[in-house]
């Protein structure tokens, strides 16, 4: 293999692969070829100086056995895996929306749960919870976000 994979066992006994983020796409392509055809979930954990991306994969041929792939990004960007699994599309949009991770090569990277124009990424540890944001609709029917309480519903 042209890249290095570190393997360890999780607290609950599941298999975990640790990988450099440059090699993520290669590893994922290989895993897809090995029969991991179900990408169950993509999640991100904010450790203030870095963001950890966690992928849970399953193999349909062997009882949906679980495999976790973990990688770390320091500049909030990572390669998108939408070309390998379709389900990455909404998952990556959710992580972009909530965590501000930019997935390079994603076909339609925009917010999914929050309206466009929302300021900040709520699941980041430095997100300011004391500032309220209000959502309203403009004449075109699009969402408009502002900090002015009079502008809300």
């Amino acid at each position, binding site marked *: 293999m042209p890249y290095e994979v570190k393997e360890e066992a*999780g607290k*609950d006994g599941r298999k975990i692969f640790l990988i450099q983020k440059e090699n993520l796409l290669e590893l994922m392509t290989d895993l897809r070829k090995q029969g991991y055809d179900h990408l*169950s*979930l993509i999640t991100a954990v904010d450790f203030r100086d870095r963001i950890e991306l*966690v992928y*849970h994969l399953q193999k349909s041929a062997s009882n*949906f056995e*679980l495999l976790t792939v973990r990688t770390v990004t320091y500049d909030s960007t990572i390669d998108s895996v939408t070309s390998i699994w379709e389900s990455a599309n909404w998952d990556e949009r959710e992580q972009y929306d*909530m965590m501000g991770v930019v997935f390079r090569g994603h076909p339609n990277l925009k917010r999914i749960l929050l309206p466009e124009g929302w300021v900040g990424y709520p*699941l980041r540890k430095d997100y300011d919870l004391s500032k309220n944001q209000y959502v309203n609709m403009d004449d075109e029917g699009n969402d408009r976000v502002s900090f002015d309480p009079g502008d809300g519903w």
Partner: protein
Amino acid sequence: MEEQLNSRYVELNMGPQHPSTHGVLRLKLLLDGETVKNVEPIIGYLHRNAEKICELDYYCDSLIYFDRMDYVAAMNMEVGYLEAAEKLLAIEPPERVKWIRVIMAELNRLASHLVWAGAFGLDLGMITPFFYFFEEREKILNLFTEICGSRQETNYMSIGGVYQDFNDKIIFKIKQFLKQFPKKMEEAYSLFIKNDIFISRTKGIGILEPEVALSYGVTGPMLRASGVPYDVRKDAPYLVYDKLNFDIPISRGKDVLARCIVRFEEMRQSVKILNQALDKIPDGPYFNPKAKKSLMIRLRGEGDVYARTESPKGEFGVHLVGDGTVKPYRLHVRSPAFKNLSILPFLARDVLIADMVAISGSIDLVFGEVDR
């Protein structure tokens, strides 16, 4: 404007306030006559960011936000969270608690499928089955009221145990309910399956191939209706599901009708599980003394765990990260309805609007869970 007038396509908004969108789903349709050319689901109208709220709360307090995710199957959500939390905090529930949780989860699975069946009938323009199914569901909710004091958002379980023990009266009442339930269910089921209009509205509509379903991350009855026998209760047993005898129904129909049949067969299997569990439930304590009420807010966890359970909609996963304090560092919920909804644009291409309603009905959407 000029462009819109000359185009043969019409853009139409369906929802967020529309009876057959099951809550607050907004669909942006691109129509050619009555044929749907493109669908863009817009979600987030019920978004509360439960994940962030849970980060700010103690481990034991997060439970009530799970009740409000899939609000028609609150017990299954609680089981899903507790599987992860108990793994992280290293607290093993007593044997009796595991059986009680299985009973409650299966009762709620019945209730959830009954809601789906009623709403699905409404989507297709049949109002009668709705009353039959909701009558049965009401009986389950009455049982819940007696056991935990509330109907839907039950808040019944807690870390390492349950809030109140079962007694003989409750077990008797559940058995009484189960005695009359199959007959009533089959009666209402025949309103679906013996109805020619229903069959012609559902058969061959929304064909979903297993490879596509797996690639989109679809789970639950939708995946099983495509012929993939994935059920977490069998493939990675939790609680006491490995001690129970039940089957995983699959169908090779791949269409809306197959999803309907699979869900009804699942209800029959749930009745089977309940009958076994009620007979086998052992005696013992109903909470772990390590997690009694006064110690609850001092529980600390470190590391990360991922627990998956089978909710009525599919694989419900909780990824929980602890940093050694009394609050979770990060909590992520894999919502099955969110993943199942993502396949709607694929399924509803080049179908009639009425068929698209049938397809979105067959997904079984609950927006508390999609938006979290």
